[in-house]
């Protein structure tokens, strides 16, 4: 890539596509190989369908139920994305606060870690009580699983700010706010991006767990309801199909976050190589 003084904030489409391709093709190959072996093994050993569905059966279920799956992906994806965005804001804010105050950190960090330990499945019914049935519960659930990685990454990133730069700001009589906005936050961005990547995948899981206990079922049901329903109906092929769709949603969100991270960091940070 040229080192000339390019002022573009957004890289050209061709380089984005190439980069995406570079990232996706190797893993895609691996996935396809795995699927082929799975299909081969199932064809060879012919287990009962309720034990292990063949990949082709799963694909068939995907095609057959594509409308329901697409609607579900949209509903769950929306909850996950909203939860993710809220978690990002909350996580960066709380992380900044904890980084700024040793007192706050000593007081709140252990509690935050403790909350992280409580299994989401146990908290989910409480969420229904607090947020009611519907998307709000799955969004809240997505927020809860996603906040900590972002908080921890922000805290870590900010606390590792180069001391020489901190002194530079002190020498120039920068206010605390100026220091946060112009130094600590940009400095922490590589770390925050890492935290956001983790949060992206988790937010989908969080949304689905929330849906298990609190979503509305109907003509259009989100992924969580589809999964529970398919399990009850012994449609293992559909269960796998729904899970795959959820994974794709998570993967897509992860991809978007990675792309944004790359755009932000590519010019100045080694991690965006």
């Amino acid at each position, binding site marked *: 890539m040229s080192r000339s003084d390019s002022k573009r904030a957004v890289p050209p489409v061709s380089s984005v596509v190439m980069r995406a391709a570079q990232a996706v093709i190797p893993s895609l190959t691996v996935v396809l190989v795995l699927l082929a072996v799975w299909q081969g093994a199932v064809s060879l050993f012919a287990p009962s369908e309720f034990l292990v569905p063949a990949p082709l059966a799963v694909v068939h279920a995907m095609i057959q139920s594509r409308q329901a799956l697409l609607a579900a992906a949209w509903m769950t994806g929306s909850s996950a994305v909203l939860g993710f965005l809220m978690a990002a804001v909350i996580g960066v804010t709380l992380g900044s606060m904890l980084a700024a105050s040793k007192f706050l950190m000593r007081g709140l960090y252990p509690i935050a870690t403790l909350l992280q330990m409580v299994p989401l499945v146990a908290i989910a019914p409480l969420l229904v009580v607090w947020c009611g049935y519907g998307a709000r519960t799955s969004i809240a659930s997505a927020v809860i699983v996603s906040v900590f990685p972002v908080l921890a990454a922000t805290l870590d990133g900010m606390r590792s700010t180069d001391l020489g730069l901190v002194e*530079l700001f002190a*020498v120039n*009589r920068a206010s605390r706010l100026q220091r946060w906005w*112009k*130094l600590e936050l940009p400095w922490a961005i590589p770390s925050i991006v890492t935290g956001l990547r983790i949060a992206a995948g988790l937010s989908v899981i969080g949304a689905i767990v929330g849906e298990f206990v609190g979503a509305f079922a109907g003509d259009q049901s989100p992924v969580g309801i589809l999964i529970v329903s398919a399990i009850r109906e012994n449609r293992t092929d559909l269960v796998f199909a729904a899970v795959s769709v959820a994974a794709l949603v998570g993967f897509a969100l992860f991809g978007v976050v990675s792309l944004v991270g790359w755009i932000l960091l590519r*010019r100045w940070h080694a991690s965006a190589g």
Partner: protein
Amino acid sequence: MLQRIEISQVGRVYDDGFVALSGASFDIRAGSMTVLVGPSGCGKTTLLRLIGGLDSPTSGRVIFHGAAGALQQPRTAFAFQEARLLPWRTVLANVALPLELAGVAPAERIERATAMLTRVGLGSATRKLPGQLSGGMRMRASIARALVTAPQLLLLDEPFGAVDEISRHALDDLLRSLWAELAMTVVMVTHSIVEATYVAEQVVVMAPAPGRIVAQFTPSFAHHSPSLRATPEFAAVTAEVLRSLGEAMVGEQR
């Protein structure tokens, strides 16, 4: 208007009892170029930071004398051994940072930063990122940033230590020409005796254990040009400085 800086019995002892600096006393005339030179641990950086207000002495005082009495810390700028540029900002934005933090309007700070960058020879590099610059260029940017606020007091802590020798000579000349042009008081720390002799009006020689001043010189050469370093005149002064340092260090040899 700053007239002189009085370093009066300034000492700095750390909490663990380590004596970084003991009883330093000398004067700095306003508008002069002073260089503190000495080996590691002689307290030169400590003294520089005390002059700059980044630290407070445990004994003695740093007094800024004006026409009508003592003054507060004058407008002071630092250049450190590492360039300390924000890696995500362009060179221009980095240089404009002090103005930005002081609330200067964008148009004005771009103008002043660009002017200063041109002055240090980085006029064509304004849009680059620090990662794209060589070490010498980064140091120039760091100096440009220090100067953009038009400081009365410029403090440099081994600014050219990480740069190769040839680039270093060029930077020394740049520093001298900036100093001449901008009429500011400059204090620089270095452990290169050659650099100290070349750059300074006043050389303050320091030695360690405990950190203290052991000698002062005021080299005055007829012409300051790059070829000065090769002259016997220069070598003589350098030898004197080295000797004074050696004498002071004799006691350290086991």
